Every structure is written in structure tokens, then in C-alpha cells.
């Protein structure tokens, strides 16, 4: 990456991967990738080599999130450098394998872009997940996608917070892009959710093609929701959940949560209110997989980032 005449230059994004089944029961990605492994015409572009790939085949086969450990948390430096062996958890071995094929993470040989396809039980609609506010290539891509699908909406979640950030499968690439579409129950395939994800990927690949052909993208403003903190369910001394997401908050992803608003409802009907001092925008509200991760929802703050002009180096 270099700067020239106020443009930020990036290398051509020639090697692109689309990951499905990082969580084996998130069906849109599993279905799309299986489709494209069989017939990849739809995802080919002239200047791009696109590879569709099932990251966690054992979990997909069992239709479960993971077999031993969450693959989408497994790409830590420790795991990736651990000596190979069959006593390693399945997903750690998988992470090492994926790092070999699509990385190594952090090296010049790594894939240029990886799209990692996910579903959520939360009412998040279409969400793009950004891991760095300084990745202008990704910011420009997300801006392009948002404009292309308007008036349908696609929001950007920025997860840069050192405590909340995690070692995702896509983090192997130079430009990691998470795509989260909900609400959809685990193990279920809803055609509207499937189609929405498909359309977003089409625009993403179109953007990459245009970029590789030399198009310059002028500076633009991108609204993002920056992840602040995770909020757990109220629990008793034994760690059991003692309240549910309140009906007012349920399905209210991306809506403002003001101090004093209802947060949780105990099983006997009492309301627990939000004690924070400022308005936040909650998301990942009532995601099934996060009960065990002690997360009822994540709070975010609205921000506008400025993406530099970009063009191919």
C-alpha cells in the first residue's frame, strides 16, 4: 500500500476466497459455497481468481456450530504456530490447514480478500463486518455495496476493539470481510436470507473487478457502528441465566438504546433497565451461539469514517 496524489494504492486483488460453513449450522454460506464449488460461473470475474471453500466440513456434516472448538476464534498466533499433531482440537488443525492454503496470515503470500459467510439468529439484516478502520480498500468496497443495494440496507459493524476482536478465519487474508445475515435459525435455510447474501457477494465481486481494471474510487464517507462492549445476561450464582432479552429490545438491532430503556425481563416478569449513561446501538441481540460466550448483545456507537481515494498500484 502506498500513497500517490492523495490516492491510497493497493495491489490488485487477484486472489479472492469465499468461506462457507465456518459455523456448520449457518446454512446460507454452506449452501452458497456448495453451489459454487460445483459450478463457480456466478462468482468468476475476468481479473479475479475466486475460490469457494467449506472451512469446517465436519461441523457442516453434523450441522453443528463446531466439533471441538469455535473455528472462528481459532486463528490465534499460538494456534497457528503450534506443532502439528492429532491431539490438537479438530478446528485448530483446520485453522492451520486454512492458513497454509490461504495465508500465511500476515505474509505477502496471503489471499487478497476473504469473504466469510455467516448467519445469525439476531435481527441484524445484512451486516458487513470490518476488522480495521484503516483498511480503505474494504471501506470503499463496503461503500460500493451499500450504494449498489440501496434502498435495501446493509450496515457496517466495525470490530476493532482489542477486547472484543477475535481471531477469525477471514483474518488470514489481507482484506478480511465478514458477512452476517439474519435473522435465521441455526440449521434452517430461508430463501430470502440466502438471496440477500448472494446479491451482496455479487456486488462485492463486481467492485473487485472494477478495482482490478484500474477504476479510481474517490474519497467517500462510510457510516459504521463501532463495537463498544458485550453485555451478558443476568445470571445467578451458579451461572444460570435468570432473565431474557426484554420484548422491547428483542429484534431491535441497530435501534437506539437509551438510558432507562428496558433491557431484560426476568422469568417472573420484572424489567431490568439499561444503566448506561449514553445512547448506544445494540446488535447481535439474542444470538443463539452467544449464550455460552456470555453475550446477550453488543453495544455500538455510530461513527462516520472517511475512506481515502483508492486505486490499483
Amino acid at each position: 500500500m502506498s500513497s500517490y496524489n492523495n490516492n491510497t494504492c493497493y495491489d490488485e486483488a487477484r486472489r479472492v476466497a469465499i468461506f462457507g460453513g465456518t459455523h456448520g449450522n449457518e446454512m446460507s454460506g454452506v449452501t452458497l459455497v456448495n453451489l459454487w464449488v460445483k459450478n463457480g460461473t456466478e462468482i468468476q470475474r475476468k481479473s479475479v481468481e475466486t475460490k469457494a471453500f467449506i472451512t469446517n466440513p465436519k461441523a457442516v456434516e453434523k450441522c453443528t456450530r463446531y466439533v471441538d472448538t469455535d473455528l472462528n476464534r481459532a486463528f490465534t498466533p499460538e494456534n497457528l504456530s503450534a506443532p502439528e499433531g492429532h491431539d490438537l482440537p479438530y478446528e485448530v488443525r483446520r485453522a492451520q490447514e486454512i492458513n497454509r492454503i490461504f495465508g500465511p496470515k500476515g505474509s505477502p503470500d496471503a489471499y487478497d480478500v476473504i469473504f466469510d459467510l455467516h448467519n445469525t439468529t439476531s435481527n441484524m439484516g445484512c451486516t458487513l463486518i470490518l476488522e480495521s478502520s484503516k483498511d480503505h480498500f474494504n471501506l470503499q468496497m463496503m461503500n460500493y455495496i451499500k450504494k449498489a443495494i440501496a434502498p435495501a440496507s446493509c450496515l457496517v459493524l466495525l470490530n476493532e476493539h482489542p477486547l472484543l476482536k477475535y481471531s477469525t478465519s477471514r483474518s488470514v487474508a489481507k482484506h478480511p470481510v465478514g458477512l452476517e445475515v439474519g435473522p435465521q435459525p441455526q440449521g434452517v435455510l430461508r430463501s430470502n436470507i440466502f438471496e440477500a447474501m448472494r446479491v451482496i457477494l455479487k456486488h462485492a465481486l463486481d467492485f473487485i473487478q472494477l478495482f482490478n481494471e484500474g477504476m479510481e474510487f474517490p474519497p467517500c464517507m462510510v457510516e459504521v457502528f463501532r463495537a463498544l462492549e458485550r453485555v451478558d445476561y443476568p445470571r445467578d450464582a451458579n451461572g444460570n441465566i435468570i432473565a431474557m432479552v426484554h420484548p422491547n429490545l428483542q429484534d431491535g438491532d441497530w435501534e437506539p438504546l437509551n438510558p432507562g430503556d428496558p433491557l431484560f425481563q426476568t422469568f417472573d416478569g420484572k424489567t431490568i433497565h439499561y444503566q448506561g449513561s449514553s445512547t448506544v446501538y445494540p446488535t447481535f441481540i439474542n444470538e443463539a451461539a452467544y449464550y455460552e460466550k456470555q453475550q446477550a448483545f453488543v453495544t455500538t456507537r455510530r461513527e462516520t469514517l472517511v475512506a481515502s481515494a483508492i486505486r490499483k498500484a
Partner: protein
Amino acid sequence: MSQMEEDKVACLPRLSRVAVCGGTHGNELSGVYLVRELLKAKKKVMEEKEPVLMVLSNPRAMQQCSRYIDTDLNRCFTQATLNGPTSDLAPYEIIRSRQLNVMLGPKGSPEAVDLICDLHNTTANMGLCFITYSDSDWICLHIFRHLQRQMPDVPMRYINFDISHKESYSLDSVGKHGFAMEIGPQPHGVVRSNIYRVMKDAVLHMLDWVHFFNSGTIFEGGFVDVFTVVRHIDYPRERETRNIIAAIHPQLQDRDFCLLHPGDALFQTFSGETLSYNGNEPLYPFFVNECAYYEKGIALYLARKRHVMIPVIRVQTEKEQQINKEGFESEEE
């Protein structure tokens, strides 16, 4: 009441033992949390009423938050499975079904509990449903009607699977009367407060009804719409791999109990083609896109709707119960 009117009253034995079961599928969380809460509140809630058995049916699956460990518990209650040869190597759920049969049954015997209400959730948009094997179990039908009246804002349907008692396979078939209470839509592994609230209210209203019944209340007859299952339809699949090649069509998704006519859209293939319902009669779809049924080869069920007349009912007096018992015993001889 005149003698002729008395003849039309169904007099049924007292419901002395009632069981409410949750977690039969370990990731259907409304029932898991509700039974846990009712167990905690047991003393407060149940003081004046009959004791109710609160059961967490599949604790290991609940711990894992999965539907089952080895095999679906709610298919393990056929007489054949319950009375089959014992083995240490038997699947966990078969060992468990036999334990539950001892606790709540034995199925088919006079010792079985009088009523089982088995709590379930579904990813399908079904509202609240009673699922039974019979369209003439007056106890279950009256409880359903009571719930309809107490909770008029909740969409409710009564479904019956036309399966003989001999072939019945679910937990609720262990009791003399029984039904599954199925509420959706809710993703598995999630508890939604609105769904929990409906289930809690429904269970409490049911227990109220049992109390009124046992106290001698006469319940007026009337009509209930019953959906009797005709068949199910599987997803279109690839011949060799058996992989699904189409999803429930957007026009059918979430439209459980909306009449499906011949020619209406059923599935949408991944290349955008519509596959239509080619049956020759309009039927009511339900369990549309239930997650757990993908592996059972069921995309949806289809049912016919009938207007069923339910009689006036009341509990048998002690004298009537005695006469009935003697009759039963002499039949056995």
C-alpha cells in the same frame, strides 16, 4: 339437567396426576426454562392445587443445548422400544425413555399419569399448537378450547396425527391423556421473552382447567377446528448425495396454516425456479421449514381441517369412578 341431557355428558375420571415436561429436545428452550422456573416456584404456585410433576426429560441434551445425544427422545416411546431388550450399549435416549416410562407410566397401564403436557418449540411460524394422536380426546380438546378463550390474541391450532395408540411414539403418549404443546417461531438454542410468556400463561391456564375439572365444573360442549395430518412433503434432493436443492419458497415461508392450493408455490431452487404443489386438494401446511425435520426428510406437513363437536364434560363422581373401576377390573378377568 334432564336424563336425556345427562346422557350426552362425557363423565371422565379425575385427573389426579398431571405431568409437565420440558427439555424433551434439549435446545427447545422455552420448556427448559419454564420447567426450571416452575420447579423453583413449586411451593408458592401449587399450594392449593393438585401436585404437578415437573420433569426435565432429556438433561444431557439440555446440558449440550442440542436436540438429542444419540437419538430423538420423542420417538422412543413406542411399546416396542419401551419393552425391548435392555443393554448397557443402548442409546442414551432409549435408556432415558424407559426411565420416563417408569416415572410417568407404564404406558397403557392404570398406573400411568392422567395427563402429560410436553413442551416444545419450533422454528416454524405456527403460533401455539396442540399436537395429539386423537381427534376425540375430550380432555385435551376442552383444555385447548379453554386456552383459546383465555388467550384470544394468541393464534392457536389443534393438530392430530392419525396414528393408532399402538404405533404412537412420543412422550405425551405415555399418559392416559397427553399432548405436545408446540410454540413457534423460535430458533433452537434461543429463548424469546414473548414466546416464553405465551407458554407460561398456557401452562398455568391448563393447570387451572384441571383444577376446575377435578372440582366438578361442568364444561359446555361446542366446536373445535381440528387439523388432521394427511401427508408430508420432503425437500427436492440431489439423487446421489441427497443434498437439498431447493428452499421453501418465499411465498410459503412463514405461512403455516394458510391454505395451500394446487399450483401454489412450494419450493424455490437455487437457480430461481419455482416448484409447485401438485396435489389435487387444497390442504393446510404446517411445520413449514422446521429445522429438526431436514434430517427426517420433512419440509412441511399437510392437513385437512375439520369442525369437531366436543361434548359437555365433567369429572366422574366417586361412585361413578368406583363402578367404572369395577367394570375395568372385570374386563381384565
